């Protein structure tokens, strides 16, 4: 079965061979787009987070066949530069495995709320697990990214 969708701005087609194939599997194994990470495959960890028609979702829980004609943005296409830079600057990346998912969730949050409080950030990132940083530096990075985006002409 052929599924066509838009991924990070490009029209792509994938041939899948079972109805339950996940969007994450298709992105990584068929399309070679390995930015979204595979960890828990049960929607717990958020490392596979992508924007599906603009909404943050775990790509491991989306059936690829549900994505016909839809818009998918991974860490490659969803994240403004200041968000990435802030993660590096603030030491919010250690092993880095959770980082792509976190960046997508942060991009989604800052798209809705340009100046989030710590509580807003914690609620928005509750579905992204990081076992290295202890989260404090990630929260610093979100504030830094928010300031960076606010200072950037759009």
């Amino acid at each position, binding site marked *: 079965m052929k599924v066509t969708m838009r991924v990070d701005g490009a029209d792509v087609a994938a041939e899948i061979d079972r109805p339950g194939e996940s969007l994450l599997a298709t992105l990584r194994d068929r399309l070679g787009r390995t930015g979204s990470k595979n960890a828990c495959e049960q929607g717990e960890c958020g490392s596979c987070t992508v924007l599906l028609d603009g909404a943050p979702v775990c790509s491991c829980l989306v059936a690829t066949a549900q994505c016909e004609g839809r818009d998918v943005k991974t860490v490659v296409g969803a994240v403004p530069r200041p968000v990435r830079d802030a993660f590096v600057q603030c030491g919010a990346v250690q092993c880095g495995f959770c980082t792509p998912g976190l960046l997508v969730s942060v991009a989604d949050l800052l798209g809705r709320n340009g100046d989030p409080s710590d509580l807003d950030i914690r609620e928005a990132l*509750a579905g992204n697990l990081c076992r290295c940083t202890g989260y404090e530096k990630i929260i610093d990075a979100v504030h830094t990214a928010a300031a960076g985006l606010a200072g950037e002409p759009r």
Partner: protein
Amino acid sequence: MTAAAPARFDFHRPAAVAEAVRLLAEHPEAVPVAGGTDLMVAVNYRLTRPEAMLDLTGLDELRDWTDEGDTVRIGSGVPYARITAELAAVLPGLAAAARTVGSPQIRSRGTIGGNLATASPAGDAHPPLLATGASVEIASTEGVRHVPIGEFYLGPKRSALRPGELITAVTVPKAAGPQQFLKVGTRNAMVIAVCSFALALDPETRRLGTGIGSAGPVPLTAPDAEAVELPWSDPGRFDDALADEFGRRVAAAARPIDDVRGTADYRRHALAVCAARALRRVWTAAHERNPR
């Protein structure tokens, strides 16, 4: 060594409910999928390998809610994120419960119809639906039927939904007064409830509605607790002893077991605490709103 798997399978994408129920009747092997937050976990863990699926996300009829006067009809495909964002004023109990589901990623996808169809005793939508006396709308090629929420849950992950049927909506009475939803877990996100409790107070009819989650084979109500006598003519007489009595009656209505998330004893204790707290909160809110 593995032979090439036959690449033949069906993925049905109906555009209308009538087409969906017809496809379901013709292809009973097709597994309906909406947000996928339950089904895809089972697929990823090889617990199920559907040879055919029926995608509900293309059914616009299921993806909106409508104001019906005294009630709100919520299409079964409305995700939790929208219930939280759009229905908090009219359905505060359900909106509060929806906000505790999983994470933002899960709430973007997970639907109220999926919560009902899975019928886990721990599903977060169930207690507020029970407390408010909601009704489940179910369609098949035979037509549409409505099942009162109290008759919907039949056992752990078993419901009144029959083969060939689709949940199309749930109709929830608008809040007539303060409502509460409390959930016990190890953190505020990504938690399957250890136990949960919903309470709805209607100051006009002087009625309480209750719903207990994750503390029995099915979501339960607590009729004895709903019958507790409240000091309507002299609200100031409401005290902790009364709240505690309410909590005891709620705990007595639960039928919990020991499992990985908690013991039966802990669940009964936590329910008593949550129920007493919920009653204090709704009583206070009702009498701040309508000073007598």
